[in-house]
């Protein structure tokens, strides 16, 4: 357990040390969701990831401000977990159990068309998403495939 705790602790410190004048010009950001570290035991290997033989592809998250964040995404992982692995700000309030719409992601049409179909439960949660689009999905339901290499995914504004 201690190896899981050491990463969030240092992130919390970096938020605190940021002087106010920086915080003023940006929206309130909460970096990494420490809770996800506790709920995803596989993230305990974070420090050793560069040595693992897991296959990755490059995907780019575009945040609500329009900034691009290319990351190495492990094939087979859900996009919500990949975001958290890489300190991308994507809320996942219900922990990926289809009880919220906070991991809302928007895809390009050509990528969207290749994604596996939505369950009723995912559709039900998407109904509640802010500014739902024709190519919206929930990040906790989409697993990374090899074909995702080079794609860009938009994290929509959450209304604030």
């Amino acid at each position, binding site marked *: 357990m201690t190896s899981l705790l050491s990463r969030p602790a240092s992130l*919390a*410190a970096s938020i605190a040390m940021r002087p106010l004048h920086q*915080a003023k010009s940006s929206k309130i950001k909460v970096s990494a969701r420490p809770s996800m570290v506790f709920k995803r035991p596989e993230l305990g290997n974070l420090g050793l990831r560069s040595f693992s033989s897991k296959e990755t592809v490059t995907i780019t998250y575009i945040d609500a401000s329009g900034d691009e964040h290319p990351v190495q995404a492990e094939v087979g992982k859900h996009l919500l977990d990949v975001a958290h692995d890489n300190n991308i700000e994507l809320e996942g309030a219900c922990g990926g*159990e289809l009880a*919220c719409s906070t991991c809302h992601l928007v895809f390009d049409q050509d990528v969207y068309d290749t994604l596996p179909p939505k369950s009723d439960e995912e559709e*039900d949660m998407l109904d509640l998403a802010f500014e*739902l689009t024709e190519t919206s999905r929930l990040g906790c339901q989409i697993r990374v495939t090899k074909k995702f290499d080079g794609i860009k995914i938009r994290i929509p504004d959450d209304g*604030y």
Partner: protein
Amino acid sequence: FGVVTGIDVDIIERLPTPYGLVRYGVAPDHPEVKNVENDFAALFENQNDASSVSYYGNVSVGKDISLSKLQSLYDVVILAYGCQAACKRLGIPGEDSLEGVLRAREFVAWYNGHPEYGHIGSIVQKCLWNTSGDDERELDSSAISPARVVVIGQGNVALDCARILAKGKPGLIDTDTPSQVLDILKGGVSHVSVVGRRGHIQGAFTIKELRELTKLKDEGNNATFIVRREELERGMTDSSKEELKGAAGRPKTRIDKLLQDSSKLYHSSDEDSKKQVELRFLMSPVSLVPKDSNSDRVGNVICERTKLEGEAFNQKAVGTGETESFPADLVLVSIGYKGMPLEGMEESQMFDQSKGVVVNEHGKVFGADNLFVTGWIKRGPTGIIGTNIMDSKDTANSIMSFLDLKNNNAQPQSSSSEDESESLFGRNGLEEFLKSNNVEFVNWEQYLRIESSEKEPSRLRSGDHPREKFLSVEDMLIAAKG
């Protein structure tokens, strides 16, 4: 001068346990919705020297410490106490005088084990089993109550009440519903009508909760879901059709389809179901009347058929004069929570009585120096957990602007006054005040003891049972300090 290098946040909660509606509002068969607790718990795990969070449970603002005292101790005070304490009234005869009429929020608080609502159990017991509980005929724990329950209102709380009553002990056995509650619910009730005065397109429920009702039978709850085609047709006015249009109409369009499909599915084999849950639309309760056999107890809900009139998104339910009488052994009024002012706030301009919210702009409270507000007590009692995420960012931004302004205007402090005032400020000041007033507060570590005690294997019904909640503040405090 004027640079904030960290923020210390103290969370003050009236009960020993935190989480509010996540613990006492969210239905026990929705454990995934409670996962947000993990995010909050993580805040307490990840402390550092520059910023920290502390918890003070069992402290009642207004009783143990005044709001103005808090405002003097802290740079900023944020009110986030929600709307649990009160609810809207129907304003119809019998609502306050008849036994067996409960507010849905009381019923929900009871089935979630809220320490202040244990007394609701004996009321439910009497309504469902027609006994006072003292003359215990040994009914099987899967016995289905012949009681007919009428839930007035069609938000998610109303649907939760119907679902919990339909599931009963067998359907809830592996949830954190308190055992005492399951012993009263037993096998559930034979009939629940959820009544709304407007049409199905205007209902406040969301599709997830509706879908759960349609799946009750398939999931082995012996309960059929019924909706009347005729009422769906009546509700599909031209204005309602307008409300379905476009991307904004997507959620309602899907609800309409699910209801239409459900109305086709009811057939004679469903007669085998021992329990029924029905949604009735365009029915406005006009009075609650007593039983013939006992004039103190509710016997029927008299409803008037309504029709929708008006423009899209502004349709009103207008009475037609036609009435229907719903037999009712238990009535749950579920028409909305309501915010209340904190003790001491009643006379001020701070509270808007008609809306039940603290008057604010982007979370900053008018007429108060360092007071902010967030959540339901800021916006009113609507929206889901996710809505509060956006809301809190709005308030947080107002706070940062306020702190910025305060720091920019601050005069450099003389060193002599600094040392003295620091010891009486913030967390230190709060603890000193509480201790000197003998307030037995519960800190985070102690709350964790309550949590782990509730999960003690010896308390649990089975390996799948998540926890057996403490039902009194006394028991919580014993576990906290032990």
